[in-house]
């Protein structure tokens, strides 16, 4: 259950760090990127939105039991921290999903529902939440799940010896956490046990985020009976985390080969019922050979499949390729100010080079994003029109965004006074001085360079001289170092954000947000952002309206504009009877229902 936004590094998958996020729900909303009306010089054919279906059912009689074979695509070994409070690596999470300790279930918008192991009740006036277990549940070792197990994760995260990333501002929203963290209190005063099955949490404030597991709420239980004897500082290296974690989910970890593979067996105590298959074997597969592995039927399903390998598997007869929108978008941002570290706030500079709405819009209109989507991404990435990915119901599908329209871009530049005065085909700035824009772009896959060069050509076509900061694409770490430090060599930058399941944009575009890399601040923007997280917005309809207003404002100002929405590709072998990848009814949340049609994956 993710409360905020995630930062998506396009580069090293290994460096991705996802914090708690249970693959919740989320209906597959058709993202009807509006393509009517606007047409540029070159009308690109609209890529079919549902290029890939999100669900597959194979006919046939299921075998009894069987082993589901999972390929985890990564080029480096997994870290192996199997604890929801401590893990940091996205691959560890992929593994833990089979034996999850998640207590809440979520719907299509990732809002907590009553279908999970526990129920959430919020009293917004008293700023309290009550979490109640909805039955007599057992851990994978047969011990009962109690209210103590719901409290224990908070005691881990808040502990003075806790060195993870989750002791954050959000978490400090729980009353008494800071006293506990500083060692002044033995326990968190704001968390109380109501009875054996329920706990109550007192918050300093509640916002709509709480329904997404935000505001400090934690969506997982921890097996206190196993962990309490281990000091928090030793937890991360303990066997209870590395080798034999006690879990709640459909499967439990049976054997682990460090960094390489994990064998799960069915958890007979799983509260939704014992899984129909006996085992899950998950192995690390290098991206170079996953296509071949799928073809030869080594795996039933591949997770974190690299989309650039899509061509190699799309025509396989033994594999159904499923897809779903990623919770992410790529974007281009303009540097319009600085971040003041002392006051922790962004300072917008009216005089900055790129502070001209027409200029920014022209940059956006000039980019042939549709063309790149088609030529380089096989339609697996499509032009983004909003800073909210289409998965959410807050997504504004009516938003126009920026189509490829060089004529309009030229018009805008003419209007804004950027004119070519010396006749060399390159426009000068308003005062007639040489005008060069410096773009920072990240080095990633082999096509990145070609794509950036293409965009530079696009800009040149409308008379804008765009040069690369440092003269070439920049390595991931160096890129973010520069962007974060407001390097004067950067006028605009191309990056990506992964969104969590709570799309509240305050952490990315707020006045105090360090991640507001464009540094754009305006009273109007602050007002719009506040409206999204206000107490009023606890009403979903009001929140939706607030979201729309914000999206429109962002699109109009174009201090940051979306370039692509991405599609996640999930290949599934045809011996799996049924697999659903859509967020709302994700099979990963119902693994106990998975059935197989043959003894081995089909070849």
């Amino acid at each position: 259950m993710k409360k905020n936004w995630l930062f998506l590094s396009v580069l090293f998958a290994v460096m991705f760090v996802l914090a708690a996020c249970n693959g919740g729900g989320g209906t597959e909303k058709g993202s009807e990127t509006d393509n009517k009306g606007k047409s540029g010089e070159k009308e690109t054919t609209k890529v079919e939105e549902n290029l890939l279906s999100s669900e597959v059912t194979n006919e046939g009689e299921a075998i009894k039991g069987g082993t589901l074979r999972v390929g985890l695509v990564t080029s480096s070994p997994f870290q192996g921290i199997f604890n929801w409070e401590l893990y940091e690596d996205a691959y560890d999470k992929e593994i833990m999903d089979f034996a999850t300790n998640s207590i809440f279930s979520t719907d299509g918008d990732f809002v907590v529902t009553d279908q999970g192991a526990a129920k959430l009740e919020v009293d917004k006036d008293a700023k309290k939440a009550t979490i109640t277990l909805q039955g007599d549940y057992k851990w994978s070792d047969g011990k009962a799940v109690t209210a103590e197990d719901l409290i224990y994760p908070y005691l881990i995260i808040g502990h003075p010896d806790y060195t993870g990333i989750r002791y954050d501002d959000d978490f400090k929203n729980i009353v008494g956490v800071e006293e506990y963290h500083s060692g002044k209190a033995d326990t968190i005063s704001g968390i109380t046990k109501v009875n054996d099955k329920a706990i109550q949490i007192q918050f300093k404030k509640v916002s709509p985020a709480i329904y997404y597991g935000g505001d400090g709420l934690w969506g997982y239980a921890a097996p206190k009976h196993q962990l309490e004897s281990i000091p928090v500082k030793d937890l991360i290296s303990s066997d209870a985390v590395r080798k034999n974690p006690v879990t709640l989910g459909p499967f439990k970890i049976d054997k682990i080969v460090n960094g390489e593979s994990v064998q799960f067996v069915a958890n007979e105590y799983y509260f939704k019922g014992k899984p129909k298959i006996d085992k899950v074997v998950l192995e690390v597969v290098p991206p170079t050979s996953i296509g071949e592995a799928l073809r030869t039927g080594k795996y039933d399903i591949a997770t974190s499949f690299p989309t650039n390998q899509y061509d190699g598997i799309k025509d396989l007869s033994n594999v159904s390729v499923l897809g779903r929108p990623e919770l992410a978008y790529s974007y281009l941002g303009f540097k319009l100010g600085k971040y003041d570290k002392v006051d922790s706030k962004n300072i917008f500079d009216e005089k900055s080079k790129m502070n001209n709405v027409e200029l920014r819009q022209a940059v956006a209109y000039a980019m042939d994003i549709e063309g790149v989507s088609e030529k380089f991404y096989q339609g697996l990435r499509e032009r983004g029109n909003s800073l909210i990915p289409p998965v959410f119901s807050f997504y504004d599908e009516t938003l126009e965004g920026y189509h490829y329209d060089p004529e309009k871009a030229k018009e805008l530049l003419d209007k804004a006074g950027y004119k070519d005065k010396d006749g060399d085909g390159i426009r000068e700035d308003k005062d007639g001085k040489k005008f060069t824009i410096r773009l920072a772009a990240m080095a990633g896959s082999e096509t990145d360079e070609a794509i950036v060069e293409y965009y530079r050509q696009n800009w040149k076509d409308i008379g804008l001289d765009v040069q690369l900061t440092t003269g070439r694409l920049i390595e991931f770490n160096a890129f973010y170092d520069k962007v974060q430090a407001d390097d004067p060599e950067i006028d605009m930058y191309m990056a990506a954000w992964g969104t969590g399941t709570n799309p509240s944009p305050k952490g990315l575009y707020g006045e105090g947000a360090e991640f507001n890399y464009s540094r754009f601040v305006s009273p109007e923007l602050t007002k719009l952002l506040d409206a999204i997280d206000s107490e009023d917005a606890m009403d979903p309809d009001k929140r939706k309206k607030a979201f729309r207003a914000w999206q429109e404002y962002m699109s109009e100002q174009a201090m940051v504009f979306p370039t692509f929405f991405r599609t996640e590709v999930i290949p599934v072998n045809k011996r799996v009877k049924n697999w659903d990848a859509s967020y709302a009814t994700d099979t990963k949340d119902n693994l106990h229902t998975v059935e197989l049609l043959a003894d081995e994956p089909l070849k």
Partner: protein
Amino acid sequence: MWKTIVRRTLLMIPQMFVLSLIIFILAKQMPGDPFTGLITPETDPSRIEELRIQSGFYDPWYVQYYHWITNAFQGDFGQSYTYKIAVSTLIGERALNTFWLALLSAVLVYAIAIPLGMIAGRKQDTLYDKSITLYSFISYAIPTFVLGLIFLYIFGYRLMWFPTSGTVDVGVEPGTLEYYWNRIYHLILPAMTYAILGTTTIIQYLRSEIIDAKTQDYVKTARSKGVPMKRIYRRHIFRNSLLPIAAFLGFTITGLLGGSIFIETIFGFPGMGQLFIHSITSRDYSVITALVMLYGFLALLGSLLSDIIMSIVDPRIRID
């Protein structure tokens, strides 16, 4: 000779010290830090800042260096920022994988290269020689990842003779005979790739040494005495021709822990090469420094070992 060994060993101390200083400073000069990868809008920046302060990130470099070197002397190289376990444990795990892979590869290299080199040298300019030379040119020219992928494709996925990734199947019970066989089984394909690519130097050295030796006076003497050619080859030529190969042996032994990033990545084999590259991209300082120190130490040790081996196999060489 003992005196030399002691002297050389003592000399390693300042060498290692300078190396540690250089690598420590350079590692910290890299853009980003271990927490850059942790930065997600999910975490608030102040928590990251807290973690940086806790880890001593903002201390002056000499203070950090002092902490690190004093701990290192006690065998504590710190915690890996990414893997969250002691660096020594982490390296130990990976080193073991790499060691077995490299050992098998080295055995295979010698098993392939020595006979081929001997045949090529002895039957100079025949079809045998020419085919062997052609083979060594090809294996020299082919990039590691290409051969790795080809082997994986043919023997792993098409013929399905060998497992395609990892060091061992997760299902087998550790400690059983089946377990050890399973591990070896996983090693064969990557080791073969490694071995075939590594044979060229040895074949060519051996070949030219043998061709050289054939015209030497001691061979002529032996022949004139009527010693059979077979015996001359076995007792005289081969022994002498192996000397330059013995000179590499020290490096070969210590090089066993180097690891190969390509082979490890293609065969999904968690070894030292991958650990090194990954620690650099994720700015896992404690692992980077420990690994560079280890590699540096191994290089020094390798040259010492080579000298010692040479003095043993070739009595003409004395290293005092």
